[in-house]
């Protein structure tokens, strides 16, 4: 048990370190911007907005809450990300890790 915990600790430590590095070096922001731009480019954002309109019409304009939207939008949004965008982002993250973690 201890062994597993240690392993898990190691992992979480690694993860924490990585996250910290990402933020410190500004890579996280850059990745965020890159993703946003790519999603807008490929039309993902318009698609999602159209879906939002449906949800709003469903729930009623006055009563829609953030939670409603989040619940409706997030799973669909995750699924609708194009493969090319996903691949590119994964590649960049890996590159970062290879450079700063290994």
């Amino acid at each position, binding site marked *: 048990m201890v062994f597993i915990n240690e392993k898990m600790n190691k992992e979480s430590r690694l993860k924490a370190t990585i996250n910290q590095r990402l933020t410190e070096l500004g890579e996280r922001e850059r*990745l965020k911007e890159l993703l*946003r731009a790519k999603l807008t480019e490929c039309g993902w954002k318009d698609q999602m907005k159209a879906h939002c309109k449906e949800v709003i019409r469903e729930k009623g*304009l006055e009563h829609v809450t953030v939670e409603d939207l989040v619940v409706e939008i997030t799973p669909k949004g995750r699924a609708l990300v194009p493969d090319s965008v996903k691949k590119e982002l994964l590649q960049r993250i890996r590159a970062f*890790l290879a450079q700063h973690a290994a």
Partner: protein
Amino acid sequence: MKMEDMPLSGPDNTKLEALVNDIYSELVEDACLGLCFEVHRAVKQGYFFLDETDQESMKEFEIVDQPGVDIFGQVYNQWKNKECECPNCKRLIAASRFAPHLEKCLGMGRNSSRIANRRLASNNNTSKSESDQEDNDDLNDNDWSYGAEKRGDQNSPRRSKTLKHKNGKWVRNLHPYNYNAGINYEMLGPDEVRSFLTTQCGVISEHTKKMCTRSQRCPQHTDEQRMAVRVFLLGPSAPVLPEADSVAGPESFDIPDGQALMSRLQWEDSPEISPSDSASSKASEETSGSPFPIKLRTDKEPISVSLTGTNHSDSRRPKKKKRPPLGLNSGGGIGSLSGGGGSGGSQTNISLSTKKKKPKLTAPSISSIYDDLN
């Protein structure tokens, strides 16, 4: 590159991959949340549905996504393939080239007369540059040729010569471009002729059939000549010249040749006038200071005498040209000569009446030059 193709050790590899995926998921979720907040704010602030209108307008301005049209549904370059028939030359011209073609075809654009002149000049030049060398020599002896600057034929074989040997003496040719200083009226279309005549002298030389390309106030020709040319070329309804009377009557010379027909069309049209002439009255200019003798011919051919006494290449191609049947113009020309010069300009006798203070040439000297030439 697939996610599994990572050059890392086994267990670490998957963990690293998992880490990468985690980070990726975080980023995507962040993006989604951002969108949710944006939309929610828009809804609550009331501008979320602003880009929507009534159904009808929505349908009308819907984005078009068909091949061959843009997103508005318009066809790109639909006039490209259309052809129009030119009313002038009856040819089929592409639509985008139609306007410039019409300009040239009708001779009415800004550049059309210029281009036509240049074209004819180069045609004449190339066709004549191989011919009679001696005649061209005479032309080249003339220094003062303003008009020739317009038609500098860069490829002419005579271009670089500045010294020529003629008649036993070296003659300086300061302006190598002064041959071919005229336009052949037969080669111009009616519209081109009209536009040409509105800006230039146009008096036709008898033996070269070329129109004088100097300005409307060219001192070699009188206004009567110009008017006669216009009447001849454009019909009786020819437009009136800008100035009705010549500034100064042209000079006329005593020519001991019985055939001195001062037909307007016989006037040499090569623009050879000394630079100093432009300031003073043109007609009576005797090429003051001109170092060249006047070339007058005593051939059987009609005389083309430069009234102004310039070194007109009057003897240009003396052997080739015949007198064209232009009786009307002849009369007019002579009349103008007489009127202008104040001399009794008869066909055979032209008296010298110069208004200039320095009469360089007198009859005797002229005849001597004659002899020289002959």
